[in-house]
């Protein structure tokens, strides 16, 4: 259950709209069901009171939306940022993707968000209500059945291995500040590294062959902000939307992960939105883990203006031959 309520946030938004600090509010909009929250721009008190929501399903990271939103008007836009969102925000600032002066950022605490896919897998289809409680949720369905599920079983993958409850950037903070967490986020990567080459190949082959080339992982990614992606460029000869003999998917996912290597804040949006359930974060985390081990710890987005490891070097960096397989 979230510690900060919908009302807290609405009041803050109305206050900032009323005193003229901002003209628009980037927020989560209530959906048809208990869980289908959509990012939206609110401009009036009435809209906020009617449609604004903050609950355990407010997964969306708004950082990337700021690129388009800040170009729309001169006035500031209010954005609510969960701790992990602030890293993406900082990273985009580092890359000069939007203007800091046009944003009023309010940091909000987050107790972890839920994965509706996991809830459906455990409680079945037909969900009409999800009631948050202490340490567990109660799920009600169309068939008058009720199921209680522990938070630990239904948190999104990224929240289970949350790296930080601390906000690295904000204009104003609501609630209490948290700490950077000594997370277990590299455990899964290590598990794969310890497999034999054959097992690793079999694992990734089975995962990546599920890909339907919908590009959701790329389009949601706050680090993927090219105006025109190479995979959308007919002249690049790589935009084969086809899934074919397993090569195109591998190429797409290797390049996607490589292009954000050193800039990926590990926000986990890619895996969250994959309609096929591919653990894409395990590719990104491999790069993060390697960067940490080869070139020293680096957290993208932690500090505005920091130089990403792939646009940096030292004279005595590891040779590729020494580096490969070092984690194993």
């Amino acid at each position, binding site marked *: 259950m979230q510690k900060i309520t919908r009302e807290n946030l609405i009041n803050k938004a109305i206050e900032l709209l009323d005193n003229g600090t901002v003209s628009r509010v980037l927020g989560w909009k209530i959906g048809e069901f208990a869980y289908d929250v959509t990012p939206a721009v609110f401009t009036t008190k009435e809209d906020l009171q009617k449609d604004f929501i903050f609950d355990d399903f407010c997964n969306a990271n708004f950082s990337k939306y700021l690129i388009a939103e800040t170009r729309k008007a001169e006035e500031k836009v209010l954005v609510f940022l969960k701790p992990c969102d602030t890293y993406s925000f900082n990273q985009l600032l580092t890359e000069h993707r939007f203007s800091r002066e046009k944003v009023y950022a309010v940091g909000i605490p987050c107790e972890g968000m839920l994965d509706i896919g996991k809830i459906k897998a455990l409680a*079945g*289809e037909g969900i009409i209500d999800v009631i948050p409680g202490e340490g567990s949720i109660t799920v009600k369905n169309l068939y008058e059945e009720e199921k209680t599920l522990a938070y630990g079983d239904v948190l999104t993958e990224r929240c289970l291995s949350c790296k930080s409850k601390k906000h690295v950037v904000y204009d104003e903070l609501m609630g209490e500040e948290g700490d950077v967490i000594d997370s277990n986020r590299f455990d899964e990567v290590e598990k794969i590294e310890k497999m034999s080459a054959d097992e690793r190949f079999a694992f990734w082959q089975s995962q990546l062959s599920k890909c339907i080339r919908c590009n*959701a992982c790329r389009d949601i990614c706050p680090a993927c902000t090219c105006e025109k992606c190479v995979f*959308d460029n007919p002249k690049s000869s790589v935009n084969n939307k086809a*899934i074919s003999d397993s090569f195109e998917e591998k190429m797409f996912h290797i390049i996607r992960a490589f292009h954000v290597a050193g800039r990926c804040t590990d926000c986990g949006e890619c895996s969250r939105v994959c309609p096929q*359930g591919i653990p894409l974060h395990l590719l990104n985390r491999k790069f993060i883990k390697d960067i940490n081990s080869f070139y020293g710890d680096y957290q993208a987005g932690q500090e505005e203006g920091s130089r990403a490891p792939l646009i940096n070097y030292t004279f005595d960096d590891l040779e590729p031959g020494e580096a490969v397989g070092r984690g194993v």
Partner: protein
Amino acid sequence: MRKFSIQALDTIFAKIAADEKLYLPVDGENGSNYKLWEPGVQMSDALNTVRSAKDFFFPQTENLIEFKVTGKQIDIIDVRNENEDFVVFGVRACDVRSFDILDRVFLSEPIDSYYANRRAHSVIISMACTRPAETCFCGTFDIDAANPAGDITCWKTQDSIYMRANTDKGEKLLAKLDGLTEECDDSAVSAQQDKTRRIMERLPLANLSAEKFGGGKTNEFFNSPAWKELSQACLGCGTCTFVCPTCQCYDIKDYDTGNGVIRFRCWDSCMYSDFTKMAHGNSRNSQVERFRQRFMHKLVYYPENNEGIFGCVGCGRCLAKCPISMNIVKVMKKLGEE
């Protein structure tokens, strides 16, 4: 109507699979999907597959023809392989209707022979729903989840499976199973249908109406200011179109293999920035226009050209899979308000 005990399911599958390939929904780590039946494979009881059944007739990627280049000689290689009989078991009412919708596109002149062949070589065995999900709204498009179409319709109860043939192809297959099934009346089926229909009435989207939409409404909705607001969070990914059982847009491309060319077609999505890109540029330059196209196509353009039949079947896949939870239901409600 014929019936057989649920214990005999594997025997029935084996009998069908002896002559033709049999595909059915099977549970996997990421929900259920259609798989080839082999002894030991269990049918899923999930409401619907993650990917739709359109893949059987309109696969995501399909090679159309190959050219092999040797020196100055070019050989044309026929790579067609769509003339194999197969049976699809357990298709839900919404997906069965989606074949109708695809038929109207691919089987009208000029007929798409790849699609036509696959349709001609298939037998569709549908399965009535008993536990619809909150995302279901097939009723909006006059689909009866308790009485799906298809060559054969099945109803599954606690202990038995009931079958009714609807077409000649279905009769033929059912006749082949004669020794394994017995004649019965439809009282058990009617009871189940009544129960399912009562549940359908209680669904959250039961009152969603498509009345305001249909052919001839282009001017009414095309310039609606609502599109901008509806599409503002859209990422421009292709998830909705790729899980959709009725989206039928594709691209044809040549792949240079280094020693020839493979001409293939693959699904395309109106949500993509390079869709409708032509020599002069792109006619839909913003996500607002791309987003509008998808929903106008399903709710207005398609019915305009197809006797009022909508291009959506209410399966709910896009509701479940959209990364930002924007979908046709929200679009219909918003546009319907005006």
